[in-house]
């Protein structure tokens, strides 16, 4: 039986992992490669890496840091941030990533989803979305709007319409990142997560807001997500206490969530 996944999220600035709150006020955590090694040794299921300033600084993604992380991580590794075209995707894959996350650039040029999926396969293209609760209106029937550029720019796109289109264009996974919940440690936005799960047939990943084991379990059960992106709970200096992967997995197993078991190192 396929297990649910725990994905550690790295928001990277200048080769270092940082932690934001509602996409702002990033504080420093650790060098990306060192944190990646620690989490791999702790048996995290997957790592996603966002070069969060590449897009706004209109520069190429930090390939050196991508490579440094890839050299130490033998679980799946997704990379995003500032990816503009197929050449950028190719460079990131050659640096050792196996999945590409696209977000703002996909909204500006949806065809990049189709082109990426055609060149590298659907499984390679992860459509990441930043969604915000704005209330139901004729243009936004789901009540959630897609934002881009680090949650700064409203797009007028309805969240559900957008993820359906992304999946149709070839995205192999969809990340639902709640702007309202990001970094709050108050729980995922289960409503929009569930709506996306019901709207597409590809795996959906819950993101933004997990602060406790209960939150993660809710995202993976009631929220219906295939995987949970976590960061605060693993390493946010804002939390009084962080948890390791072993503790998270034991807690999730207690709550009936089927996970890859954590194995006591020999």
């Amino acid at each position, binding site marked *: *039986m*396929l*297990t*649910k*996944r725990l994905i550690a999220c790295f928001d990277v600035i200048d080769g270092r992992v940082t932690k934001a709150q509602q996409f702002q006020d990033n504080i420093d955590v650790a060098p990306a490669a060192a944190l990646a090694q620690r989490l*791999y040794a702790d*048996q995290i*299921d997957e790592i996603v890496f966002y070069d969060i300033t590449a897009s706004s600084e209109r520069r190429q993604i930090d390939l050196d840091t991508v490579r440094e992380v*890839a*050299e*130490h991580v*033998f*679980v*799946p*590794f997704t990379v995003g941030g500032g990816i503009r075209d197929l050449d950028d995707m*190719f460079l990131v*894959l*050659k*640096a*050792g990533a*196996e999945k590409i996350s696209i977000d703002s650039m996909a909204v500006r040029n949806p065809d990049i989803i189709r082109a990426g999926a055609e*060149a*590298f*396969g*659907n*499984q*390679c293209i992860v459509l990441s979305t930043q969604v915000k609760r704005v209330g139901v209106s004729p243009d936004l029937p789901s009540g959630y709007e897609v934002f881009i550029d680090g949650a700064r720019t409203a797009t007028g796109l309805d969240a559900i319409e957008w993820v359906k289109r992304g999946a149709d264009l070839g995205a*192999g*996974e969809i990340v639902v990142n709640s702007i309202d919940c990001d970094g709050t440690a108050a729980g995922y936005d289960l409503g929009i997560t569930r709506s996306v799960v019901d709207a597409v*047939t*590809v*795996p959906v990943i819950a993101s933004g807001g997990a602060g406790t084991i209960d939150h993660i379990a809710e995202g993976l059960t009631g929220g219906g997500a*295939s*995987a949970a992106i976590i960061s605060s709970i693993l390493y946010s200096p804002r939390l009084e206490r962080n948890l390791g992967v072993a503790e998270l997995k034991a807690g999730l197993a207690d709550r009936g969530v089927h996970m*890859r*078991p954590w*194995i006591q190192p020999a």
Partner: protein
Amino acid sequence: MRITFPRLPPLIGVVDYRAGNAPSVMFALARLGLDATLVSTAEDLVAVDRVILPGVGAAAATVGSLEDSRLVPALRTRVLDDAIPFLGICIGLQVIFERSEEGPAQCLGWVPGIVRRFPATDRVPQIGWNRVAVTRPHPLTSGWPVDPYCYFVNSYYAVPSDPHAALATTDYSTTFCSMVAVGNVAATQFHAEKSGEVGLSLLANFATWGGGEC
């Protein structure tokens, strides 16, 4: 006086093509301290004594890439005639069969069988960690924990004509063949290079594998 010895050929060739993920496999082999080199031409293949065909993406695109680099006859010679140990990964498992429902292209046809799409009863692609139930002792799985979890990303799965070609099975919508072992030809549907320590141990076993059963 200095005596220089001719350089020994690198042990493992990792087939490199545009849609592949050869870098991830190279990083994993480097972590294990194994000597490996990228292979992108027929000439490169002569210099290696075992070969890994990694793969992501579509079977037809993979076979197309191999044909474009004129690797298909060279791989056949080294793997089927010279019988060097071969390990296909993910799409590298699917292309060794005869054909795939994914596209019109013929696959390599080294192992009788076809590649089918998962039924729509579960989310497709399958993405994540799933249990690999090994059906018989084999040098490649030596030292493994019982039925470990490995990382899969696939929309298609192989159906070998001979059930004994399957070294392991996994459940997703159906029970499918997740590892193949026929003589010196072996393959994993999961990403051995991305399956944590279990996957690394399989790659380490491959480096010393003679190409037979236990």
